[in-house]
């Protein structure tokens, strides 16, 4: 085996990943008013090893967010009563460190909301894309947080 600095770094990352996975799987809060879609998404995320909390509307999602330790949020935009924008804003205000992914079938998302959240993803792009982006989002957050701690 050749120990280049690159290999070393990726090896460390992998190791760290494994540690966090094993120690405590990241908790993801999913909020979507589409009950069936939400249920299926939960299964996909759980299969990928995440601990998943679900809420079918903004207010109940926010109360879960406050009660539980959440590592990331997957948020639908278009919901009755309270849309994803309001939910994301509240979350940012309360716990700015928690990364948020906006997942929506809505094309014309407001620009300020897009810049507020970490990642946006269009519904229908497939589970691989969802998992990849979620992993990157959590990873970059963890990295920047640990960087900040040092």
């Amino acid at each position, binding site marked *: 085996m050749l120990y280049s600095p690159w290999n070393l770094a990726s090896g460390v990352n992998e190791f760290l990943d494994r540690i966090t996975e094993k120690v405590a799987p990241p908790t993801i809060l999913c909020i979507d008013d*589409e009950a069936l*879609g939400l249920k*299926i*998404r939960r299964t996909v995320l759980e299969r990928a090893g995440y601990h998943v909390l679900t809420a079918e509307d903004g207010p109940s999602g926010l109360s879960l967010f406050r009660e539980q330790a959440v590592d990331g949020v997957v948020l639908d935009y278009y919901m009755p009563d309270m849309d994803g924008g309001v939910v994301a804003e509240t979350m940012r205000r309360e716990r700015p460190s928690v990364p948020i992914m906006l997942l929506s*079938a809505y*094309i014309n998302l407001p620009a300020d909301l897009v810049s507020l959240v970490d990642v946006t993803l*269009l519904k*229908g792009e497939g*589970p691989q894309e969802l998992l990849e982006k979620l992993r990157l989002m959590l990873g970059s957050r963890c990295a920047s947080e640990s960087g900040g701690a040092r």
Partner: protein
Amino acid sequence: MKVPEFNRTLRQLVALPILLLVLMAGFLVWQIVAAARAQEQLDHSDQITGQVQNLQNLFIDQETGLRGFQLTGDPVMLAPWKAAAGPIQLQFDSLRTLMADDPEQTARLNDLKSRYDEWQVFARGVLGKQPEAVVDPHLNQRGKAMMDGIRATARDLMLHETQRRRTEYDHARWLQNRELISLFVSIVVVGATLGFFTVHHVRAVSKSYLQQIDDMTEQSEALFESQQWFQTTLESIGDAVIACDNHGAVSFMNAVAQHLTGWKLDDARGHALEDVFKIVHEETRVPCESPVEKVRRLRTVIGLANHTVLIARDGREVVIDDSAAPIMSGDGEMIGVVLVFRDVTEEKRLQAALVSSEKLAVAGRLAASIAHEIHNPLDSVANLHYLLEEETDPEQRAEYLKLAQQELGRTMQISRTMLSLYREPKAPITVGLRELIDGVLLLLDRRMKHQGIQLETELTEALMVEGFPAELRQVFTNLIGNAIEAAGSRGRIRIRMEHAAAEELHGAGAVIEIVDSGVGIPSDIAPKLFQPFFTTKGATGTGLGLWVSMGIVQKHGGAIRIANSTDRELPGACIRVFLPARTLAQTETAGD
């Protein structure tokens, strides 16, 4: 000079001469009567003089008879004495009557009478004596003295009467002179008065006549100038103007009208309007009703039908927008018709472009909402597919497959619904309004839920209208979309539908009312609502929605009214759309 004043002058000119002549005649009659009376007085005096003379002669006769008897003693000699006795008595009576108005003369007459009676007594004494005693000279002397007294009295009487006559004669002469002078003076006075008066009045009439001629000349000049001004103004108008008389013969065309019709005014003048102003329907090519006839029938300003094409003399065609109005005389008689029209070919083209741009915008929004609806189930299907790949448990796989099937079914249903909603027939068809509005609400459902809108609907099942469903759906998507926007977060919207009975201005049909709980329409923007490019939504609106909706509804023969709601619970805008059961919309032409 006004007519009443003129009439008064005429009356004066007739009445004054008559009055003056009557006065003059009266004056002359008075003069003549006075002269006649003086003449009567003269005749009266002459009569008295004559009778006194006669009386004297009778005295002489009696005296002569008495002398003869005295001389001869013959009773025959007494004949004249006897003959005169009766007439003398009569003469005295007559004179007494004539002199009744003159007491002095009457006194003299009485004196004469008493002297005469005295003499009579004396004479009878003489006649009773013997003939020889009669010749007594003393007696004779006495008789003579008595008779001399009588004669003297009669002469005195005569003298006085003569004097009186002279006085009366002088008076009569004076009256006659006065009469002549009066006649002359009154002729001069009346003549002068009439002359002066007539000259004065005729001069006033003539002055006023000249003044009126001046005024009329001035007025006709002003009239000419104002006519020139109107002519120039009409010539300068940017729209085409054609005026024609009551029988539809062209009497005026301005430059624009000459250009658009291809007729010169000199050629067109007197021609029937139908020859000069040939108009047909843009699509059907059916000649339009003559505006002159229509105006004559309705006696009001009319706008001509849409899609009117004017065919010029050289065959050129322009789409025109026009109106026709009656020309009324001062007393309300219709004396002609004026047409004002303009070339709107370019405008129509522009409008068509705007309509199709709005259609594109609508299509874009529709695509976005379809994408949104379909992406949710598609996302689930993709997720299920991913799970199926990794799943080995057959039970679990079956569950995933079932869910995938369900979501695919939902996707297809959505796409089918949308397609059926937007498949547009070529000719108007019967549209169930409830179905149509339900479809629109389905499409807007997510948006309403998103805003937490509370929706109340009272949709009647059986209301059907004729029309183009996709266009009508565009109308209601627009109107309900506006209501959602106006109602805001957690607002309310009420959609009601009712049958509209036939009225004077429209046939039977349906009215759809959409009321929201927003702030209503400010009065300053109300008139602009249906103008193209007017929007209150800033950059997010095209400003064409209501304008196009109005166009579609009008094409169907309906109407849109926007007002503020009077319902306290829903104080926002109230939009009422009337759609006739039988549409006026024509079959779509190719390429539309």
